[in-house]
């Protein structure tokens, strides 16, 4: 099996390590334009390192695009032109400014890396509640990711808490509710450390009247590890509160009636690095791609982020 990876930053190296552990017979080609990084990695990692893809004419079985988002679309076009079989692009596909549907190649297997779909608690919710019974959903992502002003593209419009953290939660909300059309009712944005959005809050409603609240903050000092949370209220008043580690179920009188922990939903993976969900995502990618975010779904995420980001401008 031949795999090409564009970009060998934190995500590129994580996926590389997991894929290599899952399948010993993969031949990797890595495109890393940074001279120092490429030079350093080529002496330490057994793969064919290239500075660009100009010499790569033959199609690959699988290509992973793990570069910054501003180059996603360009690289996708090159993968399509080369005839690559399956393409994985890290989230958010091209950032929230990328909302053009011409990139939906219906006959191609193209997936976007929204890894939380593989979280055991999310999988449990997806299997155990019916989207038509949802009345409201709150989505939260809190972290202390930014401690000082980021440099380069991470301080520009392709970064920000909405693109980097919020997109995960929006994808989960769309995945769980099966809703892809939203009306934005209110938005508040704040820049604290970066020149971009560091805190975003939004109130939305879906075409089927599910109310949605979003709360993203990646400059919250008291948080040690990033946490995402969902709170889903059903028509019968039952409420599901979900984080990475547990699901709490409350009845219509707000009594806790059940608590399901990841310790109860045992998942086994052949190789663990950074989380069960990362391994499951790569394992699925090597197989059918089932459950993974399609390019069409990811563009719906981008469209909603775009609406939220530009909301104030539209209403001025």
């Amino acid at each position: 099996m031949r795999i090409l990876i564009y970009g060998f930053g934190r995500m590129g190296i994580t996926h590389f390590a997991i894929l290599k552990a899952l399948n010993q017979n993969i031949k990797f080609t890595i495109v890393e334009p940074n001279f120092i990084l490429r030079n350093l990695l080529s002496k330490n990692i057994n793969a064919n390192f290239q500075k660009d893809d100009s010499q790569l004419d033959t199609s690959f079985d699988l290509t992973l695009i793990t570069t910054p988002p501003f180059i996603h679309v360009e690289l996708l076009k090159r993968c399509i032109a080369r005839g690559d079989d399956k393409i994985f692009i890290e989230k958010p596909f091209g950032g929230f400014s990328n909302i053009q549907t011409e990139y939906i190649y219906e006959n191609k297997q193209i997936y976007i890396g929204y890894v939380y779909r593989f979280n055991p608690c999310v999988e449990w919710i997806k299997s155990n509640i019916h989207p038509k019974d949802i009345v409201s959903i709150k989505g939260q992502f809190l972290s202390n990711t930014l401690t000082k002003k980021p440099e380069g593209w991470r301080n520009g419009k392709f970064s920000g808490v909405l693109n980097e953290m919020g997109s995960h939660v929006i994808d989960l909300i769309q995945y769980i509710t099966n809703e892809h059309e939203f009306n934005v009712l209110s938005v508040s944005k704040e820049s604290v450390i970066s020149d971009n959005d560091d805190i975003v809050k939004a109130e939305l409603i879906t075409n089927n009247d599910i109310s949605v609240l979003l709360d993203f903050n990646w400059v919250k000092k008291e948080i040690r590890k990033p946490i995402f949370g969902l709170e889903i209220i059903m028509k019968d008043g039952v409420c599901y509160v979900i984080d990475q580690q547990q699901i709490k179920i409350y009845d219509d009188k707000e009594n806790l009636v059940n608590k399901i922990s990841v310790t109860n939903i045992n998942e086994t993976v052949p190789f663990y690095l950074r989380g069960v969900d990362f391994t499951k995502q790569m394992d699925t990618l090597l197989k059918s791609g089932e459950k993974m975010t399609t390019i069409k779904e990811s563009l719906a995420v981008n469209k909603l982020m775009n609406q939220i980001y530009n909301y104030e401008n539209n209403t001025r």
Partner: protein
Amino acid sequence: MKIILGDNQFFGVNHFDLSKGQKTKEIFNSTDKIANFINDSLELGLDGFMINSNDFGFKVLDKYQFDTSKEIHYSIPYPHKYAAMVNENGLLSLGKHVFKHMSLFNIITQGIKFLFTRNFKHIIRPILEIEIPKNLKKGSYVYLQNIVTDLLIGIGREDLLIAFIKEVVNKGFKPGIITLNPIVLDKSLNSLNDILLTENLVVCFNINKGGFNVFPEKNEVEKFIDKDKNYKLMGMSILSSGGAEIFESLNYIKALDLDYVVFGSSKLSNIKSNLDLLISET
């Protein structure tokens, strides 16, 4: 089986309940409180304690003295510090950080070797110098955290784990490796025949009755524990963060052929009752 105090409670880690983890982190909001809790726990009869090289952990070992008859198990690096660095400024910022904090001696000896060969093994010694507090007593254990161990296994650089073990031993400490993939790691350690490196080596991995985060799966890890090995074994996550009944969980652990177990709690009463259960005859 030696019993070691873990450090999750100090740093807000709780696999079962995030909010509970956050609350315990607030209880231990100073190095004094952490050091006092460690001393109180050791007085209960624990054999030692484990602590990570984050800001608090580093200071605790640099500033406080502990009962010299007790073992110190120190783990490096603090993964979140480096993850934040990479998030903000990319992978190369790690290299810049290491070079910035290297001593002149290490720049001359290891830095030049690294620049010529670009082999990561030459930066292990400087990293140890940065991460290990000067006052950590010789003979203490120094572990490599699982996020690094498992990444190195994944990228096929198990040789760097061996290099880490050698450097730790050369510095007068005992080596430890934390992994969530103990069976994969075992294949790499099989080739390690140097008794000087293996006699004190401890491999630390998840094992618990519920099989939570035990990889690839509980049955296979149980078989791995039973197998003859030239290094010691430490079980962690043994209570699966409260996900199973404590009594049954500890009885399960007691039946395993482990050299060490590590567990934590924010309450001394829990530590005492768990210790009592672990050392009781039944």
